[in-house]
């Protein structure tokens, strides 16, 4: 009993610095943001009422949800394919997949966004190449719109979707797959009817992580959206730093945090945190 208690004490002590940091760096400032949302410019629920009526805020909210949904579907599907190779491929395939998963972590989000601009812009690599071979006469609008934002965000988020998927695939009993094939099921059918459903918790976990991350994206949409595909984080930034509308910015932040919190609560009803690593 004593050792159990001292174990718990030890664990609490080890976690304390992180908790303290989170409280000081996030919880406390956020508390201030909550206060602003009810007090600026005048005390009351005015900012929240404005949220419900402001067309711009609502359209940005809807666009954010739409982009996040598309990015989630594309990222999880792409990550699923990479993870299958990473977990179940031959030695060489695993090595290549691992390289593709880890390298993006070493390149900053800013560098990657500008990289995509270089590729996708009107005079970028893709358009000039397509024009050079005569496939198109006018450049395609690949960037400064939602398409560009989705490409950039998907590229950034795929590696994050890989880990929960890999965890689910690694814990899968190979004999179940053998059993399916032994019972007459083709490889394709076994993949869709046995392998994919058995990695469901990984898919849910990956989708949630990507979706939640997408909601708060700032740099990528700001660069690749070119001011036309504004997402919620950029809107908050604009409200706070460019128009002195701190109250509305704060109210949007509070709604966003509550929404993400609700999503996380939902996630942990289906998936244990351990399965996400």
């Amino acid at each position, binding site marked *: 009993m004593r050792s159990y208690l001292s174990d718990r004490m030890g664990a609490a002590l080890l976690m304390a610095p992180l908790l303290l940091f989170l409280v000081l760096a996030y919880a406390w400032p956020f508390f201030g943001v909550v206060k602003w949302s009810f007090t600026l410019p005048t005390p009351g629920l005015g900012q929240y009422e404005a949220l419900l009526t402001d067309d711009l805020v609502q359209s940005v909210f809807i666009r954010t949800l739409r982009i996040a949904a598309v990015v989630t579907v594309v990222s999880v599907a792409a990550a699923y394919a990479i993870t299958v190779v990473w977990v179940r491929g031959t030695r060489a395939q695993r090595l290549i997949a691992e390289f593709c998963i880890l390298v993006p972590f070493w390149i900053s989000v800013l560098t990657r966004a500008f990289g995509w601009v270089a590729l996708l812009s009107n005079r970028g690599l893709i358009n000039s190449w397509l024009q050079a071979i005569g496939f198109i006469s006018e450049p395609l609008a690949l960037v400064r719109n939602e398409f560009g934002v989705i490409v950039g965000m998907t590229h950034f988020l795929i590696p994050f979707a890989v880990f929960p998927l890999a965890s689910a695939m690694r814990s899968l009993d190979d004999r179940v797959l053998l*059993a399916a094939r032994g019972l007459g099921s083709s490889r394709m059918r076994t993949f869709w009817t046995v392998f994919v459903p058995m990695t469901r918790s990984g898919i849910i976990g990956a989708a949630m992580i990507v979706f939640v991350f997408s909601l708060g994206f700032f740099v990528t949409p700001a660069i690749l959206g070119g001011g036309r595909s504004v997402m919620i984080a950029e809107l908050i930034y604009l409200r706070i730093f460019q128009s002195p509308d701190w109250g509305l910015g704060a109210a949007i932040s509070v709604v966003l945090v509550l929404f993400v919190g609700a999503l996380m609560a939902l996630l942990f009803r289906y998936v244990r945190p351990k399965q996400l690593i």
Partner: protein
Amino acid sequence: MQQPGRAAEIKAIGIGKSFGSFRALDNLSLDIGRGEFLTLLGPSGSGKTTFLMILAGFVQPSEGRLFSDGVDITDRPAEQRAAGMVFQGYALFPHMSVEANIAFPLKVRKKSAADIKRRVGEMIERVGLKGHEKKLPAQLSGGQQQRVALARALVFEPGVLLLDEPFSALDKGLRGQMQAEMKRLHQETGTTFVFVTHDQSEALALSSRVAIFNHGKLLQVGAPDEVYDRPDNRFVAEFLGEINMLPLKGVHPAGDGSTGLCEDRAVSMRCKAEAVRGDAILAIRPEYMSISGEAAAGENGIAATATNSTYLGAATRLDLTTRQGAKITVSVPNEVAAAALSKGNSVWLTWPAEKGFLLPHGGQ
């Protein structure tokens, strides 16, 4: 393995398998008869499971050919062989209900919904899972999961059912129950069963024939009483149960059988001495030896001293040492054991000539 509803006849010719430098299976040839219950028996790493996986099509043999009903199926992938298979740990689909698990092989074969419903219903009844149709595997006991695995493997009427140590996770009582059930299913379906185990009593109790493996080699195949009473070599003799071994000298053929000298006393055997002339080992199962005050003239017998006894309830296990130091164990009625121990120790061990068999001296 391709015709549903009909037991398959399998022929393996010169099957070998190497994993890198490890020789898992060496030059195995074996005929498995239609509707037979064949057990592959051996310690772990003996090659029995590798052979089962080759039969299922999950492992490709390095050499040799495999025939089913006369058709070469060596290169046919597992999903086209469709042998029913029950895995160690069952390998049920965790996300499917009992019903869906059993329906899986029928759905793969694109049977009509009505046909699937009827056959799954029959199978559920047959393995006693009525009322559990909608449950997930995780909600079932070990024995029930085992029944689902059996039902799923049998529902599409495969020509052969392959079982990889299916009872290893069950406790003893349930094991006996499932063994009886499996025997019944074998009789009812008439399908060829190939069963892998390392438990010799399970092998002897269930099978029509037993194939004994060691170090990647098939050592002997035969009916349970055949391999138990007349093993070809020392490994088989020892693996199938307790065995007493006495050194023999001057073994030579005599009449229908053979004779030799056991600790300076002539003994006779029914088996032929061709393979093992001169020095040999006489092997006798403990339950065939009895204890008496004196061996009659012409009767097989040897003098020994009782050293230890273990009370087993129905009988007593008695450890004895012969004059030349051979250790013998016998299982005798309790009062015989008590008498043997109290009698100033020296007793005679006797055995019928047909129960002793000869093994080569030394080695295997």
